[in-house]
């Protein structure tokens, strides 16, 4: 079976050019061990472990593919996985471990924004290129010019959903219910509100809860009284599903809207009927028929012998890894400045779409809107930036 798939043309082209490059620069001793190590910082334990485990699987798939294809510049690619537990302080510590002990040439991750914010200054200080696939907080890449991001940022996502609400759903009023103790949830809510109000809508009710809460009746009763057209629920699927159920039984008729945190097959297991008829923004849709997506899903399913399609966490981290690997190949060396400039010049298509970095080193990317229907995620539309 051909593991390299659709991007094999680009990859092998880059690889062959890099191979010749490495032949000349190989003697410079950039990687004595004969391997190129890239650090991968993910939460493998703790309350967001599920995301990290997804990301890890995707990167392991990438590692196999790249090595089967001749590695990076003729050297073996190794991802060094470390667990940040979803805690910023741990991310900083393990980041230093990667840089100092494992001598990685670059870092993929961290997965959550808080951890990314914590590790970014260190990566910048040591001039180690860091590419986060999922740290959507806009501040992350502002830390410095070695920090890159392959996903869209919270303001964009907020804008996309708000636009959907205003123009497609013709919503006049919106309510929000978000986790005040979670940076991601709170960030999305703020950005949604900004855009929605800019579009002329009105946020009639903005309620919060704290991570771990399971009973939202108080907030929902209050929201029900304002009778909003849409209810924005920017949190992870496990919480959202619980909220949705309670919201329906509290008599809220509004259409539910959400962000990329919704993406999971388990959304329907928990939420049942209540989550049907909702819309959320995402990085990619498994229904997408583009060659990259089809190939990725196929490879992923066969490697892990599963029928479940990989979630966005998998796709995004795969992309971050791939962008980094291709840039190193293009740079033809593991010198950090070379990798940095290769990243800056990157222009290619990966699973979640076309990637090219803007002056803030953020990917300029499209988003997809997914509609939930009959217990399934269906592709609704694609929104260009």
């Amino acid at each position: 079976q051909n593991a390299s798939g659709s991007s094999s043309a680009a990859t092998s082209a880059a690889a062959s050019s890099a191979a010749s490059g490495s032949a000349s620069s190989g003697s410079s001793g950039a990687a004595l061990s004969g391997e190129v190590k890239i650090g991968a910082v993910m939460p493998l334990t703790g309350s967001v472990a599920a995301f990290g485990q997804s990301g890890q699987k995707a990167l392991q798939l990438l590692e196999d593919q790249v090595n089967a294809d001749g590695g990076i510049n003729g050297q073996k690619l190794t991802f060094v996985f470390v667990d940040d537990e979803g805690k910023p302080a741990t991310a900083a510590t393990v980041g230093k471990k990667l840089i100092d002990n494992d001598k990685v040439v670059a870092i993929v991750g961290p997965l959550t924004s808080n951890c990314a914010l914590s590790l970014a200054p260190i990566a910048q200080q040591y001039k180690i290129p860091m590419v986060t696939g999922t740290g959507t907080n806009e501040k992350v890449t502002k830390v410095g010019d070695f920090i890159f991001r392959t996903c869209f940022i919270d303001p964009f996502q907020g804008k996309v959903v708000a636009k959907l609400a205003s123009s497609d759903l013709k919503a006049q009023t919106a309510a929000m219910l978000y986790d005040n103790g979670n940076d991601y949830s709170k960030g999305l809510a703020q950005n949604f509100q900004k855009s929605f109000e800019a579009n002329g809508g009105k946020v009639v009710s903005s309620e919060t809860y704290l991570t771990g809460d399971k009973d939202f009746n108080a907030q929902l009763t209050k929201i029900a009284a304002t009778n909003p057209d849409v209810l924005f629920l920017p949190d992870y699927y496990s919480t959202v599903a619980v909220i949705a159920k309670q919201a329906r039984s509290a008599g809220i008729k509004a259409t539910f809207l959400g962000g990329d945190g919704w993406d999971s097959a388990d959304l329907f297991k928990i939420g049942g009927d209540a989550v049907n008829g909702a819309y959320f923004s995402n990085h990619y849709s498994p229904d997408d028929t583009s060659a990259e997506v089809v190939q990725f899903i196929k490879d992923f399913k066969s490697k892990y012998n599963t029928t479940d399609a990989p979630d966005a966490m998998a796709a995004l981290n795969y992309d971050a890894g791939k962008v980094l690997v291709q840039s190193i190949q293009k740079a033809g060396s593991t010198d950090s400045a070379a990798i940095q400039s290769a990243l800056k010049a990157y222009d290619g298509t990966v699973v979640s779409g076309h990637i090219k970095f803007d002056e803030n080193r953020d990917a300029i990317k499209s988003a997809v809107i997914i509609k939930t229907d009959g217990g399934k995620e269906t592709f609704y539309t694609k929104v260009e930036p």
Partner: protein
Amino acid sequence: MKSYIKRGVIFLAASLVVFCVLFVLIQTDVINAYYSQILMVICINIILALSTNLIINYTGQLTLGHSAFMAIGAYASAFIQMNTGLPFFLSLLCGSVVAAVFGFLIGLPTLRLKGDYLAITTLGFCQIVVVAIQNIDALGGAQGLAGIPPKTTFAWVFFSMIATIAILYNIVHANQGRAMISVREDEIAAEAMGIDTTRYKIMSFTTGAFFAGYAGGLYAFLMMFIDPNSFNFLKSIDFVIYVVLGGTGGFVGCIASTSILTLLPEVLRFLGDLRMVIYPLLLIVIMILRVKNIRVTSFLRRKSGAAKPKERGEDHAAA
């Protein structure tokens, strides 16, 4: 007095030697940034553990909210420094003072609570602080405060730790310390001996908060990024664990257990997910062994014939 000065000089000399050795190792990159980061975290944790020790082991007041003061110190010093450009040390001091003031204010009404009631109240206070910070946008809210300049160096944390050890040692081995210990031993008897127990409880609590605030400041300027969730009560529980494993009172035990327990998760890192299971397992085993061990050591002491222990009616009924 002479013996005190002698001991003081020896302590200082020893710490200078330790510092020089470590400093050279760091400069020559024998101890790389990763290890030195761990080293610095250990020093900061020691400050925190010793300040918790003062409250829990010396004064006998169970607090589960010490990380609140750490948070207050961290946010206050970082915020002050970033907004006023105050020199590093002064902003640390400001942070500690703010923490101490909070310690005083919360201690005043709550310290008349006993045992578990105090524990749950301090835990509650800790959660209140976390939620409060989450709601203050100027501090970054839940998204955390980024962009704190990296001012904490090894020299800073090391000498801060030495100073903390010295100061707390001096407090404990003075009249105030004796009063605190008597509060732990028997509040009613202490009162009868003319000791204003409330005053010493508050003194201990406020002092503890001061050092926790200071350590929080060091932490903020080391990490360059802080977020409220890092300071929730689970963090406080870490300190309680350090202190309890360190044994009653002693500084050495507390420092040793803090160092080991801070290091342990890093050492166990190679185990992957499993370390999160191994760590609590070790904790339980150590706790049980420690009790057995106390029996063994007291047995050895008795055998040497020095003491005639008498802990009456405290054994064996249900065995």
